[in-house]
């Protein structure tokens, strides 16, 4: 590509760091309330791990909305399907999963996660083509038909696997905790944080450093103009939809392992959290979604410890507070 010597740059808009500081401020603010440092560290690590898992599930949904204004209430189906598909590999390979060897565990878990992503992505393709495509631009119909899709997927899982809860034991090497002083940090939570950070970094890299990413960002801002430049935005959207579905499938596997069980309504249950995260973050913003997920998880964990009765409404209260402060979410990227 021809490079033009950069002239003087216009002043960049100041980086809006207030949302970035929110999780830090929240974590520091609760220290005196919690009292014990070890409890605080445990709760904070739990929040970050849970936040990363929710982020993995929500990141695709925020781009799907930002790019095509599609409200997909069926996103939870990909979470549930991902978790169930993982059991297809992890349960028969129980011997490898239960050996206390990280490598053998990974040989079982990695293909399970990849298969879950592939199946969830393929289901995303079907979902987009059959359910979403006929209702572009019609929000009410989108809600109804995608909600219907979620119900059908959930019932199909019941039909195929039966109504019972399926235990999904954590691999042996990922059980237990690292103990530093009097602080115990669960190994699996560290892994969840790591995977979440990798997904976040990968998504940001694609969005900022590749032509596909430029197109997605441009499409979120003005899809008509992207089409007027000669790009088929629906094809791009289908790709984003499938990638988002695959990530939801990965999130489902991780959540299933976290809870050590899988049931058909897992997706339905998580959808409320996922939607809150997408709304808090600013529809279409991956960074906002990342921070929103951490905030939601922190409020759930700290709130659950400090005021257990508040846990039922804490996420809704968080959403109300953030939207009163910033009505379009932490980072508004679309004009919708």
């Amino acid at each position, binding site marked *: 590509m021809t490079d*033009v010597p*950069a002239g003087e740059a216009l*002043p960049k808009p100041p980086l809006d760091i207030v949302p970035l500081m929110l999780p830090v401020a929240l974590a520091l603010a609760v220290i005196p309330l919690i009292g014990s440092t070890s409890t605080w560290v445990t709760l904070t690590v739990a929040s970050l791990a849970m936040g990363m898992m929710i982020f993995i599930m929500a990141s695709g949904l925020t781009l799907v909305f930002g790019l095509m204004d599609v409200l997909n209430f069926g996103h939870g189906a990909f979470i549930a399907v991902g978790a169930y598909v993982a059991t297809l590999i992890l349960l028969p390979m129980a011997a490898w999963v239960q050996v206390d060897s990280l490598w053998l565990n990974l040989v079982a878990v990695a293909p399970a996660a990849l298969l879950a992503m592939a199946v969830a992505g393929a289901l995303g393709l079907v979902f987009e083509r059959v359910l979403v495509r006929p209702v572009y631009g019609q929000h009410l119909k989108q809600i109804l038909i995608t909600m219907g899709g979620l119900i059908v997927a959930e019932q199909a899982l019941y039909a195929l696997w039966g109504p019972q809860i399926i235990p999904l034991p954590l691999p042996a090497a990922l059980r237990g905790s690292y103990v530093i002083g009097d602080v115990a940090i669960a190994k699996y939570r560290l892994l969840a944080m790591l995977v979440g950070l990798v997904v976040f970094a990968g998504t940001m890299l694609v969005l900022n450093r590749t032509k596909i990413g430029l197109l997605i960002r441009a499409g979120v*801002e003005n899809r*008509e*103009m992207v*089409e007027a430049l000669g*790009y088929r935005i629906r094809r791009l959207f289908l790709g984003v939809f499938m990638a988002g579905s695959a990530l939801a499938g990965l999130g489902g596997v991780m959540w299933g392992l976290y809870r050590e069980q899988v049931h058909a309504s897992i997706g339905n249950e998580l959808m409320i959290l996922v939607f809150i995260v997408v709304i808090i973050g600013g529809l279409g913003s991956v960074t906002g979604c990342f921070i929103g997920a951490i905030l939601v998880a922190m409020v759930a964990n700290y709130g659950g410890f400090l005021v257990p009765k508040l846990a039922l409404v804490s996420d809704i209260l968080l959403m109300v507070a953030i939207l009163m402060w910033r009505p379009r979410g932490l980072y508004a990227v679309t004009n919708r």
Partner: protein
Amino acid sequence: MTDMLTLRGVQTHIGRYHILHGVDFAVPEGQTTMLLGRNGAGKTTTLRTIMGLSPPSAGDIVLDGASIARAATPDIAMRGVGYVPETMAVFSDLTVKENLVLAARSGPFDAARLEWIFGFFPPLKKFWLSRAGSLSGGQKQMLSIARAIVEPRRLLLIDEPTKGLAPAIVGALIDCFAEIKRAGATILLVEQNFRVAEAIGDTVAVMDNGRIVHRGAMADLSRDAALQERLLGLSLEAHQ
């Protein structure tokens, strides 16, 4: 002279509203055709309809002998149609360079062409790596036009490029359009500023209430003050 673009009886509805009521006109190849008319006459909708963004409900649009009335916007763009919307629609989160990278469909930039564009619009070179959102209104308009011409296009649809811009920038745009035409492109330009229309138009179509009410040479309309008054509501003072 052959017509590159022909509209025949084009009708367009947007939601419940009937905006275009049978638009007929042609854009001769290699010329600059001005589309004039009062606010709300349907000029922007006409450009959007040609581009496939507001598809016609009746009538036909023919580009280079083939109908594009039912074609999708990306297909119309790939036939060599560049579009500069009234809103400019630069991608504000992307840099000047990234905006042009997306517009250069066939791959890497043509260095000579880029320099040609920088010749008209020096600020684009100066702010090459700055976010488009931080450019001034005039600079955004330059970027929007540069995006449409970063690769050679057969037909350019340009919607009110001089709206709200300082006279010095308007002069640069007039020079740019003349140069683009010399380079072989055909232009259909919506314009409110009659002075600009006079300076660059070869042919003209005037719209009112979703119909074409006058077609002819720009020079003829330019000479006929009474016709201007009747068609555009221009008083003599308005373009003294």
